[in-house]
């Protein structure tokens, strides 16, 4: 036996194994620390730092001290800063190479803390879909004019559809006139018409005494007149056609010119709506005042949602290995087989959270934190609450992020907070109306839901003990002053925000009881101001349109006169034609008379011959 076995080797094996195990226990903490830093940095795209990790064997678990996760967009700021994370692991699942944390305690979580060193990394990681950019459906941005508006300045920078229309008509008319020049040049003038009359009078008939010769002459004269009449008719048709075209263009352009009047009205309405607070706009003045703030808050919320997404949502399809790409050397690829007890590779069953925010402490619990919800079969749920915040009496945030079936994902968050104290909050940064909420207490109840890409939210707020400040830089106009006075008197109001659309493109609707208050306060002033502006706009526009319009009218009048001249010309040509026709009839009558005379003579001769023949036969 001893020939094949060396028993001291067993001792050596035990020693070596013991050394490895001891080394693992000693250095496991360090290894986990580096592992968290490397994996975390890769996932976040910015530095993740850990101060220390310590291992406990019974139960198996780790304690992570001072975990700092850099904000990728602000390298000198930590998105999350956690004082301590303690967690215990499921040993049996660990043997299956699954990291299942049964219980985790996150203590002292803070957000947006400053860093001592930059957390930027050289290589930018490709980020999963981030809900950072949004397009609000309302294109109207900012407050319309509350003070008196400079109408001339408006017209200098705005385009006027009515003026452009008239200028376009003038151009069209000019182009048409160029086309008629050649046609008008070919019209018969006085000289030509006189020549027609001359030629008609030259057509005559002299009796030769020879009937046949006379008839021949008459025929030739008739043909000359026929040809002449054809020429005159050609000219008449040319004049008629040209006149018809002129009248058509006149009609078309005149009708378009009348449209300019309607367009002028539309220009005035558009400018009035844009540059003044209309009586209709008063119906949602609170939207104009608070809408910007709501948008900013929504934007922040969506950015944070995007940052948290990689934690509970996987973007590559899990379990499907990409066989096209080669794995790293010596790493190989782990082939997955069906599991009898499916379990995600990483899961936190329950995590207790304690957040230290500037406003106070929030505690709560998160369950089923994993990016493989489809494997686990349960959604992530969370519940955060606080009764120890400085400026909030109590707050509760609950929600579920359900991505068990990614195709039918559904995230919802409910926030209920009471007596949120607001102090010196900038509501609107607009030089015309710099609105600040000096103080207020707010009760808030909100529901936000994201189903697939569709976003919907409904938030109700009650503002109490409100006081507003409006630090005008210059003396305000009547409307701004009226608004300021009205809003300062408000000590309570409620508001409702409804959001609908998608993450990237959604509409925000803000309504509140402030609308009626402010409408009553400045409604009459706004109506007067709007009417005054409209009057001024109309007067200025009429002034600007006057010149081009009269030029166009002049051109159209000239066109009408030309058409009338052509009509007169046509009448003259008709008269000449009638002369020619008259001459033709005279010649035909003469020809007929000559023919009748000839026939009579032949008849008389015939009668004489007949009589003579009769006499001869009698005898």
């Amino acid at each position: 036996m001893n020939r094949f076995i060396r028993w001291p080797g067993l001792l050596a094996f035990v020693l070596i194994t013991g050394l490895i195990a001891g080394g693992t226990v000693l250095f496991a903490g360090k290894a986990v620390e580096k592992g968290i830093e490397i994996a975390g940095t890769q996932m976040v795209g910015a530095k993740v730092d850990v101060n220390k990790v310590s291992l406990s064997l019974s139960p198996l678990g780790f304690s992570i001290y001072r975990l700092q996760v850099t904000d990728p967009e602000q390298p000198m700021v930590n998105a999350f800063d956690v004082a301590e994370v303690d967690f215990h692991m499921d040993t049996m699942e660990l043997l299956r190479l699954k990291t299942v944390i049964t219980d985790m305690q996150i203590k002292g979580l803070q957000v947006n803390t400053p860093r001592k060193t930059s957390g930027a990394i050289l290589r930018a990681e490709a980020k999963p879909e981030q809900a950072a950019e949004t397009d609000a459906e309302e294109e109207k941005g900012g407050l319309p004019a509350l003070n008196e508006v400079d109408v001339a300045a408006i017209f200098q920078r705005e385009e006027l559809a009515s003026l452009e229309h008239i200028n376009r008509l003038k151009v069209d008319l000019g182009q048409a006139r160029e086309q008629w020049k050649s046609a008008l040049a070919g019209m018969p003038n006085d000289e030509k018409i006189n020549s027609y009359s001359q030629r008609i009078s030259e057509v005559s008939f002299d009796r030769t005494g020879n009937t046949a010769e006379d008839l021949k002459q008459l025929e030739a004269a008739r043909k000359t007149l026929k040809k002449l009449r054809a020429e005159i008719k050609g000219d008449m048709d040319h004049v008629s056609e040209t006149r018809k075209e002129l009248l058509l263009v006149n009609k078309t352009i005149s009708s378009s010119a009348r449209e300019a009047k309607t367009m002028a009205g539309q220009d005035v309405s558009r400018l009035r709506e844009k540059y003044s607070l209309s009586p209709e706009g008063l119906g949602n003045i609170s939207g104009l005042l608070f809408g910007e703030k709501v948008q900013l808050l929504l934007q922040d919320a969506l950015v944070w949602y995007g940052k948290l997404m990689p934690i509970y949502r996987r973007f590559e399809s899990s379990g499907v290995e990409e066989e096209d790409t080669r794995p790293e050397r010596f790493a190989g690829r782990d082939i997955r087989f069906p599991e009898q007890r499916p379990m995600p590779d990483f899961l936190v069953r329950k995590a207790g959270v304690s957040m230290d925010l500037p406003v106070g402490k929030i505690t709560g619990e998160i369950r089923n934190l994993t990016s493989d919800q489809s494997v686990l079969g349960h959604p992530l749920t969370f519940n955060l609450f606080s009764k120890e915040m400085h400026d909030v009496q109590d707050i509760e945030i609950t929600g579920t992020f359900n991505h068990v079936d990614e195709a039918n994902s559904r995230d919802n968050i409910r926030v209920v907070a009471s007596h949120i104290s607001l102090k010196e909050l900038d509501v609107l940064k607009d030089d015309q109306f710099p609105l600040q909420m000096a103080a207020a207490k707010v009760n808030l109840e909100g529901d936000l839901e994201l189903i697939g890409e569709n976003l919907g939210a409904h938030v109700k707020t009650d503002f109490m003990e409100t006081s507003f400040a409006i630090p005008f830089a210059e003396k305000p106009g009547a409307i701004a002053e009226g608004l300021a006075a009205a809003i300062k008197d408000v000590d309570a109001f409620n508001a409702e925000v409804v959001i609908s659309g998608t993450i990237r493109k959604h509409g925000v609707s803000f309504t509140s009881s402030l609308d009626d208050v402010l409408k009553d306060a400045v409604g009459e002033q706004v109506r007067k101001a709007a009417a005054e502006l409209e009057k001024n706009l109309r007067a200025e526009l009429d002034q600007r349109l006057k010149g081009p319009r009269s030029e166009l009218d002049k051109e159209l009048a000239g066109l009408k006169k030309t058409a009338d001249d052509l009509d007169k010309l046509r009448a003259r040509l008709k008269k000449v034609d009638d002369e020619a026709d008259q001459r033709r009839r005279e010649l035909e009558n003469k020809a007929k008379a000559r023919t009748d005379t000839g026939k009579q003579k032949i008849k008389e001769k015939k009668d004489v011959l007949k009589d003579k023949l009769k006499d001869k036969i009698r005898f």
Partner: protein
Amino acid sequence: MFDSVLKIIKLINSEQDPMQLSLGFAFAMIVGMTPLLSLHNLLVLLLILVLRVNLSAFLLGWALFSGIAWMLDPWFHDFGTTILQHASLQSLWTDMYNNSLWRLTRFNNTVVMGSLAVSLAAFIPLVLLGNLLVRRYRVHVVGWVRSSRIGQAVMANNLFRRYQALRGMIGE
């Protein structure tokens, strides 16, 4: 303390039998060609310490086969993938996958499976071949070297004598 450690080392490295040399080499093939931190290498470690295997040969072979593994890694991956995805073995792999101990062996990793399959298949042939080659080497080559002038000159050198003494400390 240091002397005790050296004695242990000398003791466990005193084997010179060709079979022990080739066994050392063959075990080195398993450890060198498969990923080091695999569970089966713990078993190999136990075997090389408990069985009378030449450790110098093992260490030398480990270095050599690590180099070979670097070259053959892509082929191991492909071979391992073929084995793991073979239709007739799916039920076996599934059963093993659902067993914690087998999961620890990382048998479902393509490189582990491919390299281990190759090294296990080549184990016995390598032992036999190594045994044969060592015997032939000792008969023909060592004798020739000892009898050559260069060989005699080297063996007469002080440096070589010190080396021999050191070998006496750490091995044969």
